[in-house]
């Protein structure tokens, strides 16, 4: 018997903001993290570990540039190893930020206001990590500008039919729009920090970054217009970027890559992994910085729901691949699926199914969605699962070519791992720095959630 719920919200898991918050407390709480809080030992330790991890990237990239891509485990038939796996993984993680900041803005989902700033920052950093891999993978990074179509004396152009070239445009456009969107969103808060700052250095720095924002009505009108426009631009971009990433695989005729479900399934997978990453980062941050009143259990619950929903779309994608490998009655499709499940990399496939399909099913239960530690563990598992997914797609589809004579195995070397973990270090370093120097939650958007801020619209 279900009792009628008396809570004002449909979800019934409590409000968007904790009790007792007002305009002043919100501003103080968020800006205080940047302006007043002493640099804690925990933050220094975290930054130190991340920074050390990042050295793996520097070392790995250094060795790579000195010796060439031969230091990695890639070879024929597996020419795409960790580099592409990591590229897709990172860029996918970035997509949740755009979804939260742009799509949920267009859908009037005000609960996003507590998490969009952080998620956007995560997008920037993830795209930065992702963008490195294609360049590293080239082997001759000093020729990276060849990717762009520029008039040259050799009269050579990129192959415009190749989605790898579309990637260049899609990812660079996406990175640009994300950066602009993030910065535009920061301006009112930078002005708040400028006004609250007591030290000269803070006042000058934040003052310069705030671009002369005075909070006049005209400023706000323009600001609202710009946000909506940027959100409108970012929404198709986020879909197009991961669609083109999926095209990188699917326009080929490699069994396991060439399948029409890839575009929507990659987009869903990207959002899935991105939401898992937002949870992974948000849960500790709200704990350590005492932000539980701003990032409430209701936020976590909503994010868990999106994770579950996108996870189910991903599961649908796996299921279609499986069904059509039989239905197609194609020898190659059938072999690919069999090899994926029971071949030398079969363990990865089953691990991926466990991480990506089985684990998130616990999120059907509200008790799990509102249990913070369990949610944290699930989000970690999904992150791993989505990395495994890309590994399975890249490696198992390639390693058994049409001709058994050209079969081979892929074993990542220490330099593969160094670069991979190095980017995790870079990502975390940037996150730590971001938390310290910029408001990680949008102050003015949180203020808008307060009851005091509800102004009635004039009758039109």
């Amino acid at each position: 018997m279900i009792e009628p719920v008396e809570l004002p919200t449909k979800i019934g898991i409590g409000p968007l903001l904790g009790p007792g918050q007002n305009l002043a407390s919100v501003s103080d709480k968020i800006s205080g993290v940047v302006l007043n809080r002493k640099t804690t030992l925990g933050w220094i330790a975290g930054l130190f570990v991340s920074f050390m991890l990042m050295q793996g990237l520097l070392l790995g990239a250094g060795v790579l540039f000195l010796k060439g891509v031969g230091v990695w485990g890639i070879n024929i038939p597996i020419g795409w190893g960790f580099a592409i796996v990591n590229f897709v993984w990172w860029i996918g993680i970035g997509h949740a930020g755009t979804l939260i900041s742009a799509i949920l803005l267009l859908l009037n989902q005000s609960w996003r206001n507590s998490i969009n700033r952080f998620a956007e920052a995560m997008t920037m950093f993830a795209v930065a990590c992702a963008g490195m891999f294609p360049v590293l993978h080239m082997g001759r990074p000093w020729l990276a500008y060849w990717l762009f179509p520029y008039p040259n004396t050799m009269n050579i152009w990129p192959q415009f039919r190749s989605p790898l070239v579309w990637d260049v445009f899609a990812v660079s456009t996406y990175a640009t729009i994300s950066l602009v969107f993030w910065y535009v969103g920061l301006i009112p808060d930078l002005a708040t920090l400028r006004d609250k700052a007591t030290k000269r250095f803070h006042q000058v720095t934040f003052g310069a970054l705030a671009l002369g924002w005075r909070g006049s009505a005209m400023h706000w009108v323009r600001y609202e217009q710009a946000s909506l426009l940027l959100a409108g631009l970012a929404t198709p971009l986020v879909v197009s970027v991961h669609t083109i990433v999926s095209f990188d695989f699917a326009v080929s005729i490699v069994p396991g890559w060439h399948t029409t479900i890839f575009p929507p399934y990659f987009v869903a997978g990207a959002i899935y992994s991105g939401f898992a990453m937002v949870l992974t980062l948000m849960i500790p941050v709200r704990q350590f910085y005492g932000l539980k009143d701003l990032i409430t259990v209701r936020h976590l619950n909503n994010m868990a729901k999106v994770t579950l929903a996108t996870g189910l779309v991903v599961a649908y994608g796996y299921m279609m691949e499986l069904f059509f490998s039989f239905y197609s009655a194609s020898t190659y499709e059938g072999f690919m699926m069999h090899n994926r499940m029971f071949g030398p990399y079969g363990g990865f496939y089953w691990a991926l199914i466990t991480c990506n399909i089985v684990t998130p099913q616990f999120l059907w239960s509200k008790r799990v969605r509102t249990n913070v530690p369990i949610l944290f563990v699930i989000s970690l598992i999904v992150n791993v699962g989505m990395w495994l997914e890309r590994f399975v797609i890249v490696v198992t589809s390639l390693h058994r070519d049409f001709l058994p004579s050209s079969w081979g195995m892929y074993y990542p070397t220490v330099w593969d791992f160094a670069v991979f973990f190095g980017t995790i270090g870079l990502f975390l370093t940037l996150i730590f720095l971001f938390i310290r120097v910029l408001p990680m939650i949008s102050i003015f958007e949180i203020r808008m959630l307060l009851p005091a801020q509800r102004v009635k619209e004039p009758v039109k």
Partner: protein
Amino acid sequence: MTPNAYTIPDALRGKMQRYQGMALVVGVIGLLLCALGFVMSPEQLLRSYLVGYFFWTGLALGCLALLMMQYLSGGAWGLVIRRTLESATRTLPLMALLFLPLAFGVRTLYLWAHPGITATDAVIRDKSFYLNVPFFLVRAVLYFIIWLTLTQFLNKWSLDEDREGGQLWAKKLETLSAPGLLIFVLTITFASVDWIMSLDPHWFSTIFGLLILVGQGLSAFSFVIAVTILLAMVPPLSGVISKKHLHDLGKLLLAFVMLWAYLSFSQLILIWSGNLPEEIPWYINRLNGGWQWIGLALLLFHFIFPFLMLLSQSLKKNPKALASVAVWVIFLRIVDVFWLVQPNFDKAAFRMSWMDFAAPLGIGGLWLAFFLYQLRQRPLLPVNAPDLEKALAHGRPH
């Protein structure tokens, strides 16, 4: 507000009955023509019948999907169209009955079911574990059991909510909708493989189920928008359904138009660039011999035209204009289904039969008559839904 505020007044009731009668006449004439067509050419009749049947069933199924979606997402847009969606889902028993001609015609309609085909075609033989007549029929029965069960509970609890009110029914409806939608998506995927994809038994595309699903959602959205706008012209809904509601519905229609184009384009470009012998013939059929003009028309009028129209905010708030776009999309949806079905049979050149008009009109007439009958059975808004006041206030000026 009295519970009966949205009961259909007599004037509207009379109007609905008149339209219902007209639709029934069209339906009966159409189906009589179909009977004549069956005598002349059973092969052609079954193909045309499949076009009409798949479109109208898809419309009802799209409404079932939207009904569950709006319970899950909440929002004012879902409340104001809920009764239209419910009425459309209650036509599914009729569609189950209308499946019978296809069930009996399966050996004529589907190449893989032709007697002796497995002896000559190795691919079809390899697929016969899935594509065989008994299993095909069992699956169809299973789909309908699932769809009718969902329809039954969604409609019953909604009626209970009308009578009793309270949070209990809303909670139940939401709880059913999540797994309901999940199972629904799977049934549509396999039904689209069975009924449409297997017309060309060699062809396959993993995105096809989603494409059909979105197409049905698009049909359903266009239909409910048109119906809602018609209803909003007269009491009791005049003045209740506002421009803001229409704006929201228009935005969702735009989203579906884009989604359909996105999935269609993905399928086309991947198959085109792969150019594999087991996949590309499907498009070669559809992009040659006159069929390419239908394909081009789909690009221009099923995507570009409604897309450009729906970008305009003033159009989305203009009832007449929005309804026109919606009806336009419904028409193009039928063309799309036609383009999915017929080129499988007329590979050499574009050909149309008079039955391609008779069957969709006949089934559509019958469907609409049944729909209008169902629409009259309940108040036009869920009078005791917990969020009704909020949903209606959403549209009012503050």
